[in-house]
């Protein structure tokens, strides 16, 4: 893009270093150049560690002073003024009024002890000098504008009284309160459910058009970019790999990394035998397996390994002095899992997916129902007898940062279940098995002696999978096992899980909120809503022909990615 008079913000040769300790410095940004036109939307796309959030913080002057340095020669020009040279007081005046930001986590970016109204009026009174009464009226108007239901009452609500989507609406109201020229949205929908994501995305796009703002939209998800952006900047490891108009990026990506990002993401349209990974694009040609489609679904005569009948789980809360309140997290869940197949479970947060999984493993006590593993009822089994069955259902949790004990080395993590279940004759044999499994999940043997914090998220998830494999489980539950990971890493892990299924006939219960990922992995898909199973069907069938209205609603909310210029005109 050429620098024109219409450019609102101009970033030139932005270099930022982070000091990690005395010897090591991380070059977070290695010379970044891009422009944001007034009234245009620029999307900054990249995976974790690409420097996209650092760029946003640098523009706002919010980099941590203790260890971040902006190198000389860097320029961030806003209407001709270099923001990096402004005094802190001038910068504060600019921030919130001219440039404002919407953060990723609405729950942690709103102050929990103040009402939403107070937090919006604070901005108005500080920057626009309104009186309390004027500010309050304005806050209600703003909440109405961002589509908050009942703004007159909600203005007095505390953040915890609002849902995630409503909190994000309140954050947006706060950000646009002073009619900023530039809105920076840092992953504004990542923490939200897919149906809410669609609404918030629509809201942001509409506000941007109505208010003639420029927007910097930061995301890891290229599908979202296609829906909102005019101009795309692809970043990796502190460098810009490619930038161009949205048409160019999606239709004729020049850079291998951009092409990889576009291809790694599972889509609803195709189901390749093996998902392409970044190395395929940066190294050489896509492999032949990528073009072949993988058949999915059940024939109907498969042997059943796991059968769940009328599983129920309720939580009880104390209410008042004596009363208790019952919350039914899972209601009457019944399904069957066939040998060598994958059951996908989809649903939004709070739909009871995880609770169901933990209950059927007896990690939570069940309130009712039966779980049959190979014909044996698990829920009524005495604890001693259960030990033999415990090993047969295993789970990989969502957050690889929380599910590995930080005080155990990878080796200890892998050997422990073998010791508990007396797998392997002695320490030597267990060590060898651990090495073989590490190799299986694609980690070097030296990983045995490292602690979880020394691994990246994807590597940690591989260790978690290897831990489950030590026990040779009959059923492996993957609870959002790839959701916290970058798309490229996600593709690698999905391929790993698929390889294990091809090799050992693993059975998966694959829980995810990402419908495209489930389509890629599952033979059968189960849709949950508010603790109930609303629909179970073959995976091709459910996406082609959803019967339940909730399933249809879910499917319609998925960001479709790039569908050509024509499709965008109606956005």
């Amino acid at each position, binding site marked *: 893009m050429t620098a024109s008079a219409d450019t609102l913000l101009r970033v030139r040769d932005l270099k930022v270093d982070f000091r*990690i*300790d*005395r010897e*090591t410095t*991380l070059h977070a940004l290695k010379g970044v150049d891009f422009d944001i036109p007034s009234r245009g939307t620029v999307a900054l796309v990249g995976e974790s*560690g690409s420097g996209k959030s650092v760029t946003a913080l640098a523009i706002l002057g919010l980099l941590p002073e203790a260890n971040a340095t902006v190198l000389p020669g860097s320029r961030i020009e806003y209407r001709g003024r270099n923001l990096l040279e402004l005094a802190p007081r001038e910068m504060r005046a600019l921030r919130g009024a001219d440039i404002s930001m919407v953060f990723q986590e609405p729950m942690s970016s709103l102050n929990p002890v103040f009402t939403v109204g107070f937090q919006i009026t604070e901005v108005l009174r500080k920057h626009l000098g309104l009186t309390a009464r004027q500010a309050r009226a304005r806050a209600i108007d703003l909440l109405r504008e961002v589509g908050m239901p009942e703004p007159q009452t909600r203005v007095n609500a505390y953040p915890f009284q609002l849902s995630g989507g409503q909190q994000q609406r309140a954050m947006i109201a706060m950000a646009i309160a002073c009619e900023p020229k530039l809105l920076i949205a840092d992953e504004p929908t990542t923490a939200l459910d897919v149906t809410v994501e669609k609404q918030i995305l629509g809201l942001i796009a509409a506000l941007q058009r109505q208010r003639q703002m420029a927007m910097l939209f930061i995301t890891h998800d290229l599908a979202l970019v296609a829906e909102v952006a005019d101009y795309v900047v692809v970043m990796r490891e502190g460098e810009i790999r490619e930038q161009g108009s949205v048409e160019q990026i999606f239709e004729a990506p020049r850079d291998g990394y951009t092409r990889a990002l576009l291809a790694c993401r599972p889509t609803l349209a195709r189901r390749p035998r093996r998902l392409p990974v970044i190395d395929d694009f940066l190294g050489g040609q896509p492999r032949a397996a990528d073009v072949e489609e993988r058949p999915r679904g059940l024939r109907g005569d498969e042997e059943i390994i796991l059968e769940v009948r009328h599983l129920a789980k309720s939580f009880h809360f104390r209410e008042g002095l004596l009363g208790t309140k019952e919350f039914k997290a899972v209601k009457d869940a019944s399904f069957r899992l066939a040998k060598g197949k994958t059951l996908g479970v989809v649903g939004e947060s709070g739909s009871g997916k995880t609770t169901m999984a*933990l209950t059927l*493993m007896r*990690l939570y006590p069940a309130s009712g129902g039966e779980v049959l593993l190979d014909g044996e009822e698990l829920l009524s089994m005495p604890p001693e007898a259960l*030990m033999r069955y*415990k*090993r047969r*259902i*295993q*789970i990989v*949790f*969502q*957050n690889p940062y*929380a*599910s*590995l*004990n*930080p*005080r*155990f*080395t990878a080796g200890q993590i892998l050997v*422990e*279940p073998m010791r*508990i*279940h007396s797998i392997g004759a002695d320490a030597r044999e267990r060590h060898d098995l651990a090495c073989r499994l590490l190799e299986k999940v694609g980690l*070097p*043997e*030296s*990983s*045995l*002696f*490292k*602690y*979880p*914090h*020394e*691994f*990246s*998220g994807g*590597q940690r998830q591989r260790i*978690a999978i290897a*831990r489950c494999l030590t*026990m040779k489980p009959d059923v492996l539950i993957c609870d959002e096992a790839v959701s916290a990971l970058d798309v490229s890493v996600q593709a690698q892990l999905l391929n790993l899980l698929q390889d294990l299924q091809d090799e050992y006939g693993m059975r998966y219960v694959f829980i995810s909120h990402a419908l495209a990922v489930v389509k890629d992995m599952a033979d059968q898909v189960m849709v949950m809503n508010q603790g109930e199973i609303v629909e179970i069907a073959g995976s091709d069938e459910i996406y082609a022909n959803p019967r339940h209205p909730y399933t249809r609603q879910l499917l319609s909310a998925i960001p479709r990615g790039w569908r050509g210029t024509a499709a965008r005109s109606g956005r």
Partner: protein
Amino acid sequence: MNTGVAALSGVYRPASAGLWALAWRQLCRDRVALVSLAILLFYLVLMAASGVGLIAADWPREVGVSYAPPGFMGPEAAAPSVGPALEPDAVAASPSEDMGIVDPLAEALAEIRKELAGVSATEARAPTLSFGADKWGRDVLKKAIKGTETSMLVGLVAAALAVFLGTVFGAQAGYYGGRADDFFNWLYSVFTSIPYLLLVLAIAAVLDQKGILTVILILGLTGWTGTFRLVRAEYLKHKVREYVLAADAIGASNRRRMFVHIFPNVSHVVLVQLSLHVVLFIKSEVILSFLGFGVGVDTVSWGSMLNEAQSELLLGKWWQLTAATIAMAVLVTAFSLFADALRDALDPRLK
């Protein structure tokens, strides 16, 4: 080997270093920690040496004149008017006012006096000592060393006992919840609802004997409450964490989850508690000694030294106070700083 994986932060880290090796490497980078560690080791060596009688075994010997000043001040500062030499005269003067009653012990006393005078006469008393002498002419430096042994022993063992009790109780209460939690909370409430000194006196009365062991038991049995509350809170927080669920899923028993999985993750709390309690109990021992529930008269501790120093200070004899205070302050400071550094080094999430 050592392919090295860039961690999240992008730092290259050579592989296969254990937790303690990593902690040690971290400590070596921290100069304050190393200095405090050296001081701590010095105290421990001192304690061990005095424990086995290598040094300061002869601390009760009266080697100097009463209130002999520290060597660097010179002998002229010594006040000749006060001292054991004058005491016999004072005692001898008193029978003259006995209103005609014959003292039945007069003969025996005279003999003892003669004996004492003989002993002190044969022994040349030093006019100054390296860090002065107390009222009886005992070397303050040796007293301080012997006191270090007593005080550190009391502090370390009592703190270990208190923190151990607090950790075990807190782990049970926090992990199991329900009845176990109710029971330990009740116990906690009972212990904290009784005024501290009353509780200490009650336990002292029950144990009914003076000595180091008594002091340790008193402090250990009353001091666990703070640790209990913190550890309980940590266990409440950790027992629902995913890694504990994961341990449950692989079939780890309750006790294994409690002490093998959760404990290392809350050990920094316990460690800080331990260091705080060592410091606290060293000070508590002083208070107990002052109240007369501390160590016996045949033992010296910093507490008994400070107790003696009260009256000495009025006479301008500051050295005993100084010696005990310096010994205590240096140890307490070094211990706190080292515990802080150790906690940082042991916390894998901070790295």
